């Protein structure tokens, strides 16, 4: 009996190890990979390294279609800017107004994230009310030498893990 428990615990630990290892933390990812559709979401974009030995000096993140009211969090050592533009699909705002324009891209620049270091970049905004869908935050990490583009969006039937440079993804869950 005890042996069985021990073995099961070991197996669980091993499984946990495999599951954790299976996660590709080397990729640029979101700290919270799922959130309630239509809620306000704090996106913590985790950048685990620079590009192939070279430090990241600029990070550009594209805001997914349907996400509104986007506010990036300023970050010490980095200059913050946004690119505003027309939304691909207008969104119903408060009081019946249509939102047709908003932040399309957030750019942190001027910092220096060494390849051997890790950093987080934060923004928040209102998620589209589309439970069940997955939305993507394509991110471009510009380095002193080279560029890493975390922009691959999985084709039907594939997962971000099947790609070398998957875009950070967020699954929208139904409201409880």
């Amino acid at each position: 009996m005890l042996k069985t428990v021990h073995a099961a615990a070991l197996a669980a630990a091993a499984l946990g190890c495999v599951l954790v290892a299976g996660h590709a933390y080397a990729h640029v990812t979101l700290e919270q990979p799922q959130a309630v559709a239509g809620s306000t979401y704090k996106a913590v974009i985790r950048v685990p390294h620079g590009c192939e030995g070279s430090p990241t000096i600029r990070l550009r993140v594209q805001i997914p279609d349907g996400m509104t009211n986007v506010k990036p969090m300023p970050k010490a050592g980095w200059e913050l800017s946004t690119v505003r533009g027309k939304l691909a699909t207008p969104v119903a705002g408060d009081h019946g107004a249509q939102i047709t324009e908003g932040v399309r891209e957030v750019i942190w620049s001027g910092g220096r994230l060494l390849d051997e270091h890790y950093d987080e970049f934060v923004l928040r905004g209102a998620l589209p009310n589309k439970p069940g869908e997955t939305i993507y935050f394509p991110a471009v990490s510009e380095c002193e030498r080279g560029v890493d583009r975390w922009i691959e969006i999985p084709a039907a039937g594939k997962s971000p893990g099947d790609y070398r440079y998957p875009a950070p993804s967020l699954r929208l869950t139904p409201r409880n």
Partner: protein
Amino acid sequence: MSGRSKRCLGHAAILAIAAWFWASAALAHAVLLGTSPADGTALAQSPPRIVFAFNETVVPADVRIVDANGTLHAGPTGAEVKDGTVTLTLASPLPPGQYVAAYRVASADTHPIAGAIRFSVGETAPDISATVENVDNAERWTALSVIVRFVRDAGLCVGIGGAFFVLLVAPASTALAPIRLALAAAALASLAGAIVAGARLTAPTSLLSLSFWQTTLSLSAAAAAAAILLGILTSWMGLRKASKPLAVVGLVLAALGTALTGHAATGGLDARLAQTAHSLAAFAWLGALIPLLYLAQTGPASAAEIAARRFSALALALVPVALAGSIVLVVARVPLELAGSAYGVLALAKTVLLGGLLAIAAQNRWRLVPKLAADAAARTHFVRNMRIDIVLAAALLAVTAQLSHTPPPSHGALHAHGPAAGISVALMREGHQLTLAIDGPNFDLYLARPDLAAFDPLETVLEISQPALGIEALKLPLQRLEPGHYRANASGIAARGRWQLRIEALVTDFKKIVFETEIELGSASR
């Protein structure tokens, strides 16, 4: 719970936490930082070893050196690793030649990563001359292919035009034997065309080689030959049994066959239909000139005039169809970049010849045909005109045969080289088109936007892999030749076998399109 089982769960918890930390610490993929020799280096002498430097410790799974024939010179085992530096020592020096050094390693997170570099050893001159020789060889095949194409078209022209003449213009007065002869020649030439296309790709040492026939049968030229052959047999039977519908179906099928290979074959359905209509109308018009001349020379004057009138009226319908077909095929798709290219010169020559034919046709129709029966001088003039017409028509077919083997400028996505110019593959992703043409050591990429304009991505990457040779993700540098047209030189890479190709085209900073395909290369052309 007993103390022992508590201890056991405790162990498991510690193990799980340890595993978590271990996994978290080691979750970055390894990245190749550099190699020695560097990618693309020409070395005077064989290097003593190949070194791959990674940013972290890796476990080498397969590190090897293969030459341009795919022969293994070092590895796949025996690589040593120290602090992320993987070294493969050569037991004996590499003979002069071109090599691919390929690696497949597991990074600490067990994620496999693979890649390859190229380098050459010794004088590169022999390799270059070998390449040139291969190109010459390819050009010889191209010349043969052009001739075969001309024979095919001339045969179809005389056959279809003759049958058209028999069926619609002058049923009683035309001999069937020359028509059959022409159709037979066309059938043989289309078969020869498929064989030449296959031979050009595989350079078989014997016609009994299995790979040669496999390649040949997989080409569009083989499908075209089959359609033309079937069409010709059908029309032959139709003529024999005096069954007009059967003959017409056969001729249409044969014309359809001409749309299954060549430039039109890489276009959409519209291009194929346009090519079919163009072939049918142009062949019927030009091919009928011969029996008409024969009739004008030997037949009774009145019969000649009646036939000429009928032909002239039908030509008024055929010429616009042929022209409309060529407009859909060429003019609408390659509007601006014709000037200066070989394709443009040939297209211009074709237009001039066509202009000559139309001018003579107009003179015949409005001046000579009305007087044919009564005026002997008009008849002499008419016969002379018809002879010039036939010479012009033959020249037109010759130019067309050459044109069909000349890559159109830009817009390659729709006008890729037919198989006669090497291998070509057309791919479409998210409305964007990529045509890949492989000829000798050159990999040509033609990219087009959804509106068919030339497409220049912000960044274009071509990677090729052949797992069977142990080569994965070998990046070939691309050179931009003209808008939308990129070329990679694949010399030094084994020509044989099944290669996987991956082309990444960056549309915007945040969006890229990935084209993936597999191609089977024969032993020739590299």
